[in-house]
């Protein structure tokens, strides 16, 4: 091929090259994206896997890596770092065991119903077993660390941010979207105003909420003083500190739910709603039977998008509380960052991988068990 083109005149050779490029245009167009992702996602991911299986130590003139197998993971799950990732287990009472039994029964029921429906596939069963095993494992850890005497670790903190945060944001966003969807004036004004927090830099939000929540000099301090709260500080208590992080996160992310749900509500057909109203349907009936089915697929999708991002939380806890008091507000990403800062690269990579496992299984499960059925529902 090259030999023949070499003998051709320069212009023809040039045309030959251009023609080749045009024929290969597909791969050539995709290649930059693939190379960038290989360099900054796949390659680092593999290296990280190796790091998480080895011990990193600084040595004269550089560093050494020693392959140590699953030691880093064992340390996090059962060893000296267990308190950090999973937390300190409390005393399991009747209540705790009962709760666990209830959760186990519920999860097994879901699996049994799937298997008995007679359309079970090997892949579907396997996927459900993995999801259920993860859910039960995390539920066990949550119940045990919230038991008296227990202290939750970073995995449970992250889950709290994800589950409570996303649920509250979705509820508020849906409520605001329904309110804004009413025939009101100035809808565009509210839409623009409510959208702003989504775009504000999270680090800035964190510091701003630190100022707002200050018990001595903040804007709400006089109000609190009239209620007689003077000595107490939210930063010293685990739950109030977590609440502050959740408030900041909710302030930022409610707009996302709001703006998308409002668009979905505006898109539904007006005729149906007017017909229902003429028939005397109440507002709640209209929502349940007309609006909700119409927006369910979009709702499921934005919750999924939000889930993916929520697992990565770090800016708010790091600036707002520094992860404290103790470990109360530390997320898994922050945990990994702190391990990295103390030169424990193996441990840091292992925490990162644990987060990758949890968030991937959670997001894929949510996609398969919620988003897909919601879309089928639409058709």
């Amino acid at each position: 091929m090259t030999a023949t083109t070499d003998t051709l005149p320069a212009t023809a050779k040039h045309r030959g090259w251009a023609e080749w490029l045009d024929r290969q245009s597909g791969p050539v167009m995709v290649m930059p994206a693939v190379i960038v992702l290989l360099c900054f996602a796949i390659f680092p991911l593999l290296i990280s896997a190796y790091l998480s299986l080895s011990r990193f130590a600084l040595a004269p003139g550089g560093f050494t890596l020693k392959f140590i197998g699953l030691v880093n993971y064992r340390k996090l799950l059962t060893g000296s770092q267990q308190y950090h990732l999973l937390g300190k287990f409390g005393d399991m009472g009747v209540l705790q065991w009962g709760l666990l039994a209830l959760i186990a029964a519920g999860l097994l029921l879901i699996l049994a119903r799937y298997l008995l429906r007679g359309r079970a596939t090997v892949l579907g069963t396997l996927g459900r077993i993995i999801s259920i095993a993860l859910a039960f494992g995390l539920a066990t850890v949550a119940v045990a660390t919230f038991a008296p005497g227990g202290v939750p670790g970073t995995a449970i903190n992250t889950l709290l941010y994800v589950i409570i945060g996303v649920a509250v944001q979705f509820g508020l966003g849906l409520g605001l979207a329904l309110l804004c969807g009413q025939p009101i004036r100035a809808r565009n004004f509210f839409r623009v105003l409510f959208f702003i927090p989504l775009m504000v830099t999270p680090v800035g939000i964190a510091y701003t909420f630190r100022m707002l929540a200050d018990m001595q000099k903040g804007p709400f301090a006089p109000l609190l003083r009239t209620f007689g709260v003077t000595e107490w500080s939210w930063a010293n208590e685990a739950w109030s500190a977590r609440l502050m992080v959740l408030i900041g996160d909710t302030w930022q992310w409610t707009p996302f739910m709001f703006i998308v749900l409002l668009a979905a509500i505006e898109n539904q057909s007006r005729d149906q709603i007017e017909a229902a109203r003429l028939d005397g349907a109440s507002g709640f009936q209209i929502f349940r039977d007309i609006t909700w089915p119409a927006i369910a697929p979009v709702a499921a999708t934005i919750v999924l998008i939000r889930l993916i991002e929520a697992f990565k939380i770090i800016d708010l806890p790091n600036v707002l509380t520094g992860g404290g008091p103790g470990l109360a507000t530390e997320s898994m990403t922050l945990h990994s960052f702190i391990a990295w800062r103390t030169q424990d690269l193996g441990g840091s990579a292992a925490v990162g991988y644990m987060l990758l496992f949890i968030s991937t299984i959670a997001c894929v499960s949510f996609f398969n068990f919620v988003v897909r059925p919601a879309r089928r529902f639409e058709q």
Partner: protein
Amino acid sequence: MTAENRTLFRRLFEPASVDSQAPAAQVITYALLILWSLVVLVPLYWVLITSFKGAGEVDNGPFYIPFVDFTPSLDAWNFMLLENNTLGPYLNSVVVALVSTVLAVLIGSLAAYALVRIRFQVKLAGVAIFLVLLAAVIGAVASFGIAWELAVGVALALFVIALLTLVRRTRLAVGNNDVEFWIISNRIMPPIVAVLPIYVMFQQLRLLDTQVALIATYTAVNLPIVVWLTRDFFAAIPLDLEESAEIDGASKFRVFFTIALPLVRSGLVATFLLVLILAWNEYLLALFLSNAKAQTMPVLVSAQNTTRGPQWWNMSVLIVVMIAPVVLISTILQRHIARGLLVGAVKG
């Protein structure tokens, strides 16, 4: 209940027409919406007025309204913008966000266009061999101390040989949807997993704490979003124009730049703005990859938080200058940015 009362009751609680709300319901709706407006505005208002306060106004506070209960001053602004090193990180943020966004949108839309318009067949065996060789190279270099140039060379040679012999004979291939899914699924990966090796990589290349490192990394993390959004904009434009241009002899690249891109202009603007703001706000990667020279605004704020934490007035100036551009952009161009979000969410 008298008849007069009954009509008043009805007028309050029943809508006048199908297309309107009852007055009572309307009052509640507006009250709730105004309440949330306050929730949105109070933090922004507070950080803005705090930037015009001084130590006295903050420590003896709280004071709420400038000129009424405290006298605003520009001292903090003078100090932070002229004496403190704020402009350096600000410039870094601007350069990194703009350049990485341009790159991500360019590379991403090119890939998205190709994935929408050109059929792909990627042999699964080729992908598998590539991954095995990559893992082998990493293992060999890390455990046995083999020079990385040698390992990469051998692996590359093996890969080419495999491509020409083994892979050709296999049938199993993945198509456009799989490639697209793979690109988008990269967004699920928490950045903390990838950032450690990226850190080491830039350290070896002596690019740590430079704008180049940040630009390259931001381009990569935002690429999946660009592909995800722009693919739909491209899929929505009619084929005829491109086809007639191709019949006239225009190359695929020409068609892309002169016909397809201009047609999806407004979609590109939406994607650009969204990615720009994401890059501007990014924190974790900048925390790892920059410390002094290439520091961006979010890292500066978080670093000053540890040293100047109690100096609310100075911190507020930093935050105001950091969030002012994004608040302005999202207020003025809300329609465009929201469009990007909607396309992503509605299609999923």
